[in-house]
Structure formats: structure tokens, C-alpha cells
């Protein structure tokens, strides 16, 4: 069986679910950011695979992937800044302790 679109999409789905389980289960905020990066990479793989097999002459999926990368860069910089600020104020990055908004 030759490798086609489905194989790349299944790889993307597996990667996305691994990232999702990581986001749900981990307590360390930096690990949660890393798992979000895994999920964004999974989406990018799916977009580029669609661009390769469904619209090979328009490259729309690759343009979407470029925008996803730009948003991911902005997101991780803000995320690290927020984590460092919380660490300065509360001396922890355990997300179970970030319950300031909890009533």
C-alpha cells in the first residue's frame, strides 16, 4: 500500500490527540505550552498534506500553514511571558495553583 493523503492525515490525527492528552493531563504550564505546539504542528501537517493532494497548483494550505506558524510564534512568546510573570508573583508554575479566578 503506497503512502497517500490518508497516511499523512492519520499521522496528524495521532499527533493532535497526543497533544490534547498532554494539555489535559499535565500540571506544568511550560509542558502545556509544548503540547499546544505539538497540536499546532499536527494541524500544519494536515494543511500541507491537503495542499499537496487536493489543491496542488494553488498552495492554499501552505499559506494557511504560514499564518498558523506566525500565530504560534506570537502565542508562545506571550505564553512564556505570562508563565514567568506568574512564577515571579506566586513562585509556582503548577496550573492547579493558578486558581485566582476561581470563585
Amino acid at each position: 500500500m503506497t503512502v497517500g493523503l490518508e497516511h499523512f492525515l492519520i499521522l496528524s490525527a495521532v499527533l493532535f490527540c497526543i497533544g490534547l492528552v498532554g494539555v489535559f493531563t499535565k500540571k506544568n504550564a511550560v509542558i502545556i505550552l509544548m503540547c499546544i505546539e505539538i497540536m499546532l504542528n499536527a494541524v500544519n501537517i494536515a494543511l500541507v498534506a491537503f495542499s499537496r493532494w487536493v489543491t496542488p497548483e494553488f498552495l492554499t494550505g501552505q499559506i494557511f500553514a504560514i499564518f498558523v506558524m506566525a500565530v504560534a510564534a506570537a502565542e508562545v512568546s506571550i505564553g512564556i511571558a505570562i508563565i514567568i510573570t506568574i512564577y515571579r508573583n506566586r513562585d509556582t508554575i503548577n496550573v492547579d495553583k493558578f486558581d485566582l479566578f476561581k470563585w
Partner: protein
Amino acid sequence: MFDLIFWILAIVIVLAALAVILLRDVFRAALVLILMFVAVAGIYILLSADFLAIVQILVYVGAISVLIVVGIMLTRDVTRGNPSGKLRIPAIVIGIFLLILLIGTIVNTSWPMANGIPKQPTAQYLGERLFGTGGYLLQVELVAILLLTAILGAIVLLRNKKK
């Protein structure tokens, strides 16, 4: 050859992503994450997206991994151990359920395949699509504003207020 490279890269990516979740040491998890970024760049090359592969190396391997490592270093004394929370079992069940759902959908859908030859090198065509007429110029400007906002937000958040 295409198939062999795909399987090697897919196994490396999935094992690295699992290692990010399962490793005890946070710093090692970051290093394995960098390995996963490099393997994803290989997947892009396999999909004849050469410009995206270079951007992946520059942005993810070059910049985002450095940010994450700096974040780990600055919060080092509490990052020993990589514990899981209380919701571990339900999260794994939800993840496996979503995975079965996604794979079933992917396998049972007949995708509209086009049999055009992918353009390569892609940099010229991507530039024409982004900046040409009927392209994505407004979105490029919006991304520029978003990045500027992110820079300003990071500076404001991390400024030392005691001076």
C-alpha cells in the same frame, strides 16, 4: 523510497511526541520536542513544501525552542518532575475516543484528489499568492500587527516595575 522515509519520519514524530508527555525531566522533554520539530520539517520536504520546511526550521527549531528552554531555565527549581493531574484517566479516554473518531472519518471519506504536479520550488508561487492581486495582503498586514502586539505584550508583562 518515499514510503520508507515517510514511515521513519512518522515513527520518529509519534515517539518524540509521546516522550514529551511521558518523560519525567522537563528539560529532556524540551529537547525531544526540538527533535519532533526537525522531523516535521522533514515531512514538509516530503510533501514538496520546501519553503515551509525552512520556515519550520527557522521559527520552531530556531526561535520557539529557545523561548521554551529559556522559560524552563527561569522556572527551574519547581520544574523537577513532570506530574500528571487528577484528570488523567478521563483525558486519556477522551483522547483515544477522539482518535478513533478522526481515523474513522479520514478512512471513510473519499477525498477530492486533484492530479496536478506540485510546484517546486514553492517560494515564488507562495509570494505571488500572498502579495499578488486577489491574494492575502490584508492578512499579512494583520499578522504583522499581531506580532507587534505580541512583542509589546511580552515587554509589558516582563518589565521590572520596581525601578
